């Protein structure tokens, strides 16, 4: 019997969208925004999804179809308007490009803040952890002492990925970080993802690279207009995804 890790029931998420581009009080008055300046734009529509422990799920779909929103809903960052989202395992921070990095601060400071924000900071182990991050990301101590704003995109991804991946998360959510790393680092990341998976973690993986999704995930879903149009193996989901472009 597989144990349920995440359960979404009839989840709908909509963004408060600014009608007619009202972003200031001037617009608010001039464009008659007094009558409901905001409208709800549906991003996710009655999503029903069960994810079991140890499963690896790939999410594909075109840009703006709600993939990141789905991840954020699972992470508890967005509260759905309708429906429930139950997560019975520990959530690790969302792994997305540049997420949570403070550009003015150094890599080291960012690691510490990230650990504190995700509730894992421990004075005794932090030194160990920094060594691990440095080793995995192949960023030297010297580079880690530089402000993050001087990093290249690939280095940012290395830092973010290594920070999350050096601990053993129960739930790993990856939103297109692999795309910017170089070939060697991509391989290393995939290897690490498999390690984490083998240790029993649940993985949710968003990517536009079909090969990567097939490689990492067994199960796949394809999103369109905020609906799940395919929930099957990752092969079938990719097939559906490719059909979108024909």
């Amino acid at each position, binding site marked *: 019997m597989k144990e349920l890790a995440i359960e979404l029931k009839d989840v709908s998420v909509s*963004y*408060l*969208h*600014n009608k007619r581009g009202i*972003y*200031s*009080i*001037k617009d*608010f008055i001039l464009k008659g925004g007094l009558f409901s300046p*905001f409208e709800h734009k549906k991003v996710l529509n009655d999503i029903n999804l069960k994810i079991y422990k140890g499963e690896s799920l790939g999410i594909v779909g075109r840009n703006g179809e709600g993939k990141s929103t789905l991840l*954020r809903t699972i*992470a*508890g*960052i*967005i*509260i759905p308007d309708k429906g429930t989202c139950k997560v019975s395992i520990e*959530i690790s*921070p*969302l792994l*997305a490009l*540049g*997420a*949570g*990095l*403070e550009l*003015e*601060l150094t890599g080291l*400071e960012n690691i*510490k*803040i990230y650990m*504190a*924000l*995700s*509730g*894992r*900071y421990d*004075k005794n182990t932090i030194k160990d952890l920094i060594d691990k991050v440095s080793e995995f990301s192949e960023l030297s101590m010297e580079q880690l002492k530089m402000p993050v704003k001087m990093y290249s995109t690939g280095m940012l991804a290395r830092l973010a990925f290594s920070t999350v991946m050096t601990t053993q998360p129960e739930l790993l959510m990856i939103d297109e970080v692999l795309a910017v790393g170089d070939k060697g680092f991509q391989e290393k990341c995939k290897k690490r993802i498999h390690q984490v998976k083998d240790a029993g973690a649940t993985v949710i993986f968003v990517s536009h690279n079909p090969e990567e999704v097939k490689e990492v995930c067994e199960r796949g879903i394809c999103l369109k207009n905020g609906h799940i149009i395919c929930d099957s193996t990752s092969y079938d989901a990719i097939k559906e995804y490719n059909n979108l472009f024909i």
Partner: protein
Amino acid sequence: MGSKTYLIYFLIYKNLQLKYKHSMLGFVWSFLHPLFYLLVFNFVFSKAFSNIPHYSLFILSALIFWVYFSGSCSQLSLTFIRNSHLIKSLNVRKLLYPLSEQGTELVSFLAGFLLFIFLMIYLGMPINLNLLYIIPIIILFSAFTFSVGLLLGSLNVFFRDIGILWNTLNPALFYLSPIAYSLDIIPQQYLFYFKLNPLYHFFFIIRNVLYEGIAPSPIQSIYCVIITVVSFLLAILVYRKTRNGFISNL
């Protein structure tokens, strides 16, 4: 220390780092900034208000709290916007960001305040046990400042001109608050309107302690408590109403 404590500590540390990153004088600015104002006011107004004894102390006692108030409010009005990258990727209580911002401002205010105590003693501040009243006043004033800042910060997410509007109105509020003058010069018929300004009541009890060396007036203290509680409840209400919409507007 627990993880939460570390978190606030780190956020405050982060804010301080960001605030003084490329400045040589760093912390000293929280002393120099009010000092500069003080010199200007002394120069401009001291003849006009020669009837107020210890005029420099009179200004300074309210001025340092004003600088704390306006600085905090403008920082807090940006707090959610500035931390949008964290809000979008981490499931952390969003209230922590304004809280740590207020903490940051409090730290730099206290650092400046300690230096100002010496200056105020030099300027004729009465030293007695009543001075201890300043501690609860600072706590109360911080809570009030936090409330105003949280209110501005929550609304600023939806309408960015709230922040601009605040910065525009800031000088007006400054001159409408009895900082460089006392209410004696205000004509009787306008007095009521001046007393609608919450800062008036705070400056009243602050001056009781720092300028006159007496215990804060009970009636004014009660006003201040009421003002703080009401503005705090209002700010929390607005924050709770708006927080779920933050992500779509950041």
